[in-house]
């Protein structure tokens, strides 16, 4: 068997993955689709998001205090946590619609070096 055709050892496979990650970090901005953000929010809330104008009360109970607490809960949620999402209560203070939650998250990604991709 030629040297170049042999199977990768686990150590070599790991090295390849690390190389790819370093490429992601150094040579390109990470990207995320708006649809992915909305899908994650739908999973979080257990309810579809079909329009940005839907009242936030349709998605979370407990009033303004709970809406501010939502920032921490979203920061902790699965893939958002993996991405290092860092919303603060200020981002959600006084919001009235679910669209404003999406905007806060998109703006966070944008400001933290991500490209937000549409459609």
């Amino acid at each position, binding site marked *: 068997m030629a040297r170049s055709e042999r199977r990768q050892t686990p150590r070599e496979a790991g090295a390849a993955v690390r190389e790819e990650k370093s490429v992601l970090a150094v040579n390109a901005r990470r990207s995320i689709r708006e649809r992915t953000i909305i899908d994650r929010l739908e999973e979080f809330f257990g*309810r579809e998001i079909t329009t*940005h104008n839907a009242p936030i009360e349709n998605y979370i109970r407990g009033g303004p205090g709970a809406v501010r607490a939502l920032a921490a809960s979203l920061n902790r949620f699965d893939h958002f946590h993996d991405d*290092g999402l860092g919303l603060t209560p200020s981002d959600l*203070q006084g919001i009235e619609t679910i669209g404003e939650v999406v*905007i806060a998250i998109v703006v966070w990604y944008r400001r933290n070096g991500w490209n937000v991709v549409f459609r």
Partner: protein
Amino acid sequence: MTRKALAVRRKALAAALCVAALPGAGTAQESTSESAIGINYPSDAEYDKAVAARCGDSGFYLRGDVANVGVYFQNGASLVENGAALSITGDSGTTTATVNGVAGYVFNRNCLPRPAGFDPDYPFVSGYVISPWVLANGTLFNSEEDDGNTKIQAGLSGQVELFQAIFDTQYLTATPYYQTDFKGEAQIYGGTLSWRPYLLDIHLGGTTTPAGAMLDVYWSVDAIADYFYVENAGSTDLTEGTEYAWLGASFGVAGWILPDALDDRLTFTTRFDAFWDAYSKQSVDYFEANVAWALTEDQNAAIELAYKNGTDKDTLVDIDQWNLGFTFKY
């Protein structure tokens, strides 16, 4: 994989990740019309301006409970179960009016940013507020009668929010106050310290609303330390010249029955308070439950059936009453 193959793959990966190369791709600022749910995304400057406007929104408020006023307060919030209430009753020539509400003004509410260099998981102080208020709670009669369970309080609330410290967020509040009764005879001076945590994972302070749920429910807890000195007991059952130092907690549950089918109109709340006085060693408890049917779509007005039983620690008067009333919010 050879070094050469790895380099080729690296190049391909970099190209694939270049957003400009993706069909239909662009930054949020460039592609506002492409949003899947019709959002017109603001620029960063516009976003900051909108956040600043929401955070600096001081103003007058009217609510059912002073605990509903704080960093998280906002005008137009829809919380029927926490609305101010006024109900009028006629019975054999005696007319009574029951008042239950707090009015005040919010000063210096703020939203503090995460300190530079802090990880997203680190706790920080994220807001504070100072709010003077006046509370009225009790029943007015069309005679000189006073059932001894009326109070008017004037106070100043200072509140700090601590974000992501074990809980999602939590509020620490200090409230010095002056209390009298509806006749103006009682003179009571005091101060309250309270703590309210939120952790949405366990429905503490709030809950999400999964589609098709039979019941949306969350619970709340307020830990409270309340010290006051009674100079004049007035019509209350408190003892003049006596100090009280109540330690305890208030537990609450709020629920929406068949929220999707009934359009959020049918709600219930319960509250249980348990307190112990460090001076007299006595304990008091208080239970309250109500069911409300919202009359308006914005839920700012409702018909409410309430039951109260127990002892109010602020007046030491026993309560056991049903009440059917109309609640409204401004």
